[in-house]
């Protein structure tokens, strides 16, 4: 009888553990923000495709990053019929997804895809994005199958439009 009790309480606690464990992951799933390690992100930095990829590293706590978010939205809207993919890689802390990241995305009405890079050993992966990058943000990688460039700086609206247009045109003319 005692055994039965112990076994049933064990089963119960294991069951509870899984419920709690899955609930901890739930906020990320609910919010639709993919949380990635660098290994997850890496393939997206080197796709062999005629689509132009714009990968921006930013965070809600980074003032110059926030300043250029609308420009990335403008560009995404302007070239939505072109082969262009904008990926906004947030370096916010995972614990701030609900409290800071989501409210910020709503406020800015962000349409570009946002993922969160959660990979604390940044000394390992920063040079894999670009060997000369110090890790200061904002920083943007733009590439397609004929061209690749890393911009360790912020953009003005004009600069970003010009640069992205060049990439798209180069890709088209190479076809």
């Amino acid at each position, binding site marked *: 009888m005692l055994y039965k009790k112990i076994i049933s309480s064990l089963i119960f606690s294991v069951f509870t553990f899984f419920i709690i464990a899955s609930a901890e992951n739930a906020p990320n799933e609910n919010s639709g923000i993919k949380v990635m390690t660098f290994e997850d992100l890496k393939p997206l930095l080197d796709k062999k495709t005629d689509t132009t990829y714009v990968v921006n590293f930013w965070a809600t*706590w*980074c*003032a*110059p990053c926030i300043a250029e978010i609308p420009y990335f939205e403008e560009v995404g809207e302007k070239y939505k019929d072109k082969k262009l993919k904008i990926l906004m890689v947030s*370096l916010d*802390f995972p614990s701030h997804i609900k409290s800071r990241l989501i409210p910020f995305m709503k406020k800015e009405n962000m349409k570009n895809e946002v993922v969160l890079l959660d990979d*604390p*050993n*940044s*000394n*390992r992966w*920063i*040079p894999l994005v670009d060997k000369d*990058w*110090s*890790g*200061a*943000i*904002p920083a943007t990688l733009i590439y397609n199958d004929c061209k690749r460039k890393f911009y*360790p700086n912020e953009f003005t609206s004009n600069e970003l439009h010009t640069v992205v247009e060049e990439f798209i045109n180069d890709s088209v003319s190479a076809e």
Partner: protein
Amino acid sequence: MRKIIFAFAFIAMAMLSANAQALQPGAKAPSFSLKGVDGKTVSLSDYNDSKGVILIFTCNTCPYVVAYEDRMIALHNKFAPKGYPVVTINPNDPELSKGDSYEAMQQRAKEKSFPFPYLFDEKQEIFPKYGATRTPEVFLLKKVNDEFIVVYTGTIDDNYKDESEVKEKFAANAVKATMKGETPNPATTKAIGCTIKVKK
């Protein structure tokens, strides 16, 4: 005219690239003389009797700095008695980053009982000389003859989020290597940090 424009463009580019690059190991550490949170001015030359200095560009507002504050204190407590004290400098312009004013620095230093000087690079003249780009950013300086030489630049360790998950204590290892007369390996590391807010 065109030549002049080219020359200007070239100089501007040279300045930009110089700013973007942190002083490399082997470089002479630029001197400074800045006001600390206690109102007293602290200079690099005040440390002429130390074996070195763990200089960290930091601030109040950056989440990465906040995550590292206790580890900066621990670095000081561990290595100051061995001749390598921590000195911290806030390079941010308080007009662009409200929480980084001198008063806010005083308050933060008090809250955390910083055992090291917390200095204000009010004119934003010192951080460009070091080529610092973000907070936190460490420059380990070693006293060689009459000069301080940079022997390590980069981050404190390999996990900003969780100290218990740290595998490599880059800054502490660099100090230990320097104490043994060895060259730190790695002598430079990279890290995500908050861009220094520069007055335009």
